[in-house]
């Protein structure tokens, strides 16, 4: 007859433990909302900053921009090309 009493006792202990755990976890989660909100905001902010920087890099590495800048700096197109022809192999000289 003692066994059911142990069993009931154990079950009650589990129920109390789980109840305490739930209260503890809920309490933790409910207050972490602020931290989570801040973290999300920070991530969004970094993403935005990255996108803005990426856009600046693209703009300054575009051929259109580089060519305009080169013209402004006084570079002109070289119309003649110098081709260095390969010399004959030693065996044929």
């Amino acid at each position, binding site marked *: 007859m003692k066994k059911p009493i142990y069993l009931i006792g154990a079950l009650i202990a589990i129920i109390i433990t789980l109840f305490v755990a739930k209260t503890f976890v809920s309490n933790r*989660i409910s207050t972490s909302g602020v931290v*989570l909100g801040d973290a*999300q905001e920070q991530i969004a902010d970094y993403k935005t900053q990255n996108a803005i920087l990426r*856009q600046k890099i693209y703009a300054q590495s*575009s051929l259109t921009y580089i060519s305009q800048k080169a013209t402004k700096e006084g570079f002109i197109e070289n119309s003649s090309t110098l*081709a260095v022809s390969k010399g004959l192999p030693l065996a044929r000289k």
Partner: protein
Amino acid sequence: MIRYRIVLILFTLVFGVIGLRLFYWQVVKAAQLSELGASQYGNAIKIEPVRGEIETSDGFPIAANKISYLLYADPQEVKNKGEVASYLSQSLDIDEASISAQLSQDLLWVPIAHGVTPDDKSKIEKQNILGVGFTEQSERYYPEASMAANLLGFVGKDENGNSTGYFGLEGYYDRLLKGKEGSAVEIHDAVGRPILARVNNKDSFGQDGSTLVLNINRSFQFLAEQKLKEGIEKYGASGGMIGIMDPHTGAILAMANYPSFDPAKYQDFDQDVFKNTLISDLYEPGSTFKPLVMSAAFNEKLLTPESRCPICIGPVSVGGYDLHTWDDKYFPNSTMLQVIQHSDNTGMVYVAQKLGLDRMLEYLNKYGIGKITGIDLEGETAPEIMSKSDWYSVDLATTGFGQGINVTPIELMTAFASIANGGKMMQPEVASSVKTADGRVTKIQPKELGQPMSETTAKVMTEVLVNAVNKGEASFARLKGYRIAGKTGTASIPVAGHYDPTQTIASFIGFAPADDPKYVMFVILNRPTAAIYGAETAAPIFFNISKDLLTYYGIPPNGDE
């Protein structure tokens, strides 16, 4: 006894009513209540996918996304409306009256300006204007501005206000670039602070758009556009186009159109400039079509480059029409090599007649004339070839020299490229691979469309075209020391049943180096006025670009003149 029954009936009725009410709440209104419950602990949030980028072959994003802001206001909170309108108008270069009109509305939220830059945003934010705020937006951004605009297309809005790609690559690959919209429930605490975001399954997150990697070489594209614009200005043409393709794979290396537009400001342009003329303009190709007809005759072993033309003594009369050469000069008994070199129309009439209608139609089909090439761009057209019964003898004769038949430039370039690729015709492809948001890469494999001619015929035709470049009417412009195969074209423009005697479409098509072609290039000028011939207008542009392309590939001249 009666009292028991009354009580029983009453209880039954009460339970019945309760049962019905429970059924109403739990079954009929279940979904609505569930939604109401969810709204008390969370908000449904839409996860907008980021549109995929479009990269050139060097990995540069020619179409990307940028952050901009929507400036809005709560007119009831804005204190000094006149001052605020004046400040915003000066800062953002917007009409002050339109801002004042927005601020005078009896609403809680009014949009003031779209596309506000991050710099302008921070400048305005520093003023701490009460009742004015910003919402982040993502919009399409083209770092190279109008470069390759007709190839790219643009992103506009559909009837529901959603971003959608139109024309070119943005249109053709819209679903792939767009990605998939997702949704989630953001759970919040008692005071509305977010705790967790819950999604029903992995797919609920949606998916960002894939990145498209192109075969387009950014340097070639820049060069082609620059030289085309210079050429159009120099020769007084109304427009023009240049296509550059790898004949071995069909990879499109550059595609330039002029006039063009700025895809970021597409609203400011006329719709006519949106189309990519290389894939959608129909025209009678003129002499650039001759190599295809001549190749067919060589391939059928009806003629050889040494075969003589017995009818090249003067104008040829066919079906009541007199067919002349372009300069009314005639070369009696000339060889087929010379027919192409002199771009002799009467010689090509002989070739077409030798080929006959059945074989002509068979080869047009093999070259893909009258069919779309399948290029991965929105807006490709293809004119239909007349049915056999509608052909007159004069149609066969004029087709020999590229008049009386309509093609798109991409059709002709694809067919011509087969000469540079040992007779094999490749499908033109603008995109080379697709990168999904999670990093998976799918290569787009080159696709063979057929083999209209044998390898031997292709080699023979290459020599004929090298001779045409070295000794033909465009020889003055050729690059000395290089073996380049090519053909000029001066096409008459049909107008109301006859050909316009003053205007032409001047073109040049060719490939280099002739023995191991790296590219096929097609240059077309619409209605040049400084000179009307392809040899004097399109050919110099072709060789001018070729000089830079050959340097790019590191191919030196061989020293031969």
